[in-house]
């Protein structure tokens, strides 16, 4: 069987919409176009009913008690901003210390940086070589000034799954607000805000086969009730937490995406895991000197992040240009710095430059996996034949023993 090119293997970046999601959304663009905030006519009531039903579906998906705990936003970045800045602003009278990790998404890091400028004290916890945070490291970092802890459910680059339940135990014991950026992990690894004592959680539709431009922040309403200072001023929508006319089609699509994931996720994840393992096995069987980045077990089923030593990531991506993947190589960023996540895990910089992230998903087929594996293997060999470092390695020269002139 021939595969259709190009092949998409960058499901961490975004996912295609499930056709069932699109179908559910369509009526809300024209027939049922009302503003959910319009209280005086049926157009508004219809839209409002659809939004409220969606809230319940999404709440159920993440184990929340009520749809009232769901605040709709424009996506993960806004949810993260609202959680961090909104909680910091509300709880600052109790203390000004915030704890997060070095591997969080930029939306968290940059929100924290802004708060630091306003006088907050931010602790960025290190992770192990496997990319996983040790809850005891977190416990030790807590002070009587700590008001907020933010840890991601799963890392977007290496797929490392964080010990959210253990952290939730600690934060609820110490009565510290606990935010989880669940964007990458939700649907692919167990996540339940009640069971895990999560107070705030960011999720987004487009990572789970829903539309772009819609996300949500879960805000706990009881035991304890969490409050935020809104970051968007206006009509007081979303119980005053986020003003702005609701994206009704997006919200309806988001709920449908959650519903599908809720019902089909277990089976789907098993299938994707098999494909991911197949890809990894094929690559490691055929090539020497590859390194799996991130924990082997505590890892998203869809993620494979591998460093191909002696080959530069961008060159490899160019060689497999019909396959959409991403790299931790500096060349893919404007900063010319390799991935901060891989460096935080203690990976040597040359291996960070050599990393490729494969993200598999709902529409990935076995034929695609086999095609990609064969192509990667072939091209890595070509590039290694062209690599002075591989030649030195084969001659037994330790590359680390050479004094390189950094440029």
């Amino acid at each position: 069987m021939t595969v259709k090119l190009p092949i998409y293997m960058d499901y961490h970046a975004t996912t295609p919409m499930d056709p069932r999601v699109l179908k559910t959304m369509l009526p809300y663009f024209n027939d049922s176009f009302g503003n959910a905030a319009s209280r005086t006519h049926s157009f508004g009531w219809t839209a409002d009913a659809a939004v409220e039903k969606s809230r319940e579906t999404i709440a159920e998906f993440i184990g929340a008690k009520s749809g009232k705990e769901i605040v709709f936003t424009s996506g993960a970045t806004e949810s993260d901003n609202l959680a961090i800045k909104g909680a910091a602003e509300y709880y600052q009278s109790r203390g000004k210390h915030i704890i997060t990790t070095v591997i969080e998404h930029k939306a968290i890091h940059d929100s924290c940086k802004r708060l630091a400028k306003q006088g907050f004290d931010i602790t960025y916890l290190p992770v192990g070589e496997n990319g996983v945070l040790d809850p005891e490291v977190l416990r030790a970092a807590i002070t009587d000034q700590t008001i907020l802890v933010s840890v991601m459910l799963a890392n977007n680059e290496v797929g490392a799954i964080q010990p959210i339940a253990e952290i939730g135990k600690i934060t609820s014991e110490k009565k510290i607000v606990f935010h989880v950026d669940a964007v990458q992990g939700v649907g692919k690894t167990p996540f339940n805000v009640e069971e895990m004592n999560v107070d705030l959680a960011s999720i987004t539709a487009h990572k789970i086969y829903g539309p772009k431009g819609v996300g949500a922040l879960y805000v706990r309403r009881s035991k304890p009730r969490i409050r935020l200072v809104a970051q968007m001023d206006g009509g007081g929508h979303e119980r005053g937490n986020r003003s702005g006319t609701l994206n009704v089609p997006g919200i309806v699509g988001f709920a449908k995406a959650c519903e599908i994931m809720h019902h089909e996720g277990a089976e789907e994840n098993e299938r994707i895991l098999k494909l991911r393992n197949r890809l990894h096995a094929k690559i490691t069987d055929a090539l020497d000197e590859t390194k799996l980045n991130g924990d082997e077990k505590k890892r998203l089923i869809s993620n494979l992040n591998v460093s191909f030593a002696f080959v530069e990531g961008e060159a490899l991506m160019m060689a497999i240009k019909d396959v959409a993947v991403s790299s931790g190589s500096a060349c893919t960023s404007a900063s010319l710095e390799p991935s901060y996540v891989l460096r935080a895990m203690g990976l040597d910089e040359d291996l960070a430059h050599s990393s490729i992230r494969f993200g598999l998903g709902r529409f990935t087929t076995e034929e695609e996996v086999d095609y990609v594996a064969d192509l990667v293997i072939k091209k890595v060999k070509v590039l290694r034949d062209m690599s002075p470092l591989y030649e030195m390695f084969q001659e037994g020269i330790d590359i680390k023993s050479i004094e390189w002139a950094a440029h």
Partner: protein
Amino acid sequence: MAYSDKVIEHYENPLNVGTLDKADDNVGTGLVGAPACGDVMRLQIRVDDAGVIQDAKFKTFGCGSAIASSSLATEWIKGRTVDEAAALQNSEIAAELSLPPVKIHCSVLAEDAVKSAIEDYKQKKVTREALAKG
């Protein structure tokens, strides 16, 4: 990032990939860059008695633009005298390959690699002549 057609052409069909015997007196070897920075270039030249570069080879660890810059540099210096080759400017490589600003350093590295190989060749020659004089 979109690559220019010339970068793609050199990257897909690189010229002069290979290794010359670095123990050979007439071979100069330049090794520049650093693995931690994501690019390392090794460029070698074989020079005849008239001071003309007869052959040039490279191996590069780096992005597509770095590989293309190496390929172009080796192709350009073949047939030139050592002094002519030493005058090669990175801006010529960057212009020929239409490198965007973030990739200019690839052409700089190629210029450095050429100069380093010539330096190595000249050093060997000086040492050899000094030995011959005894």
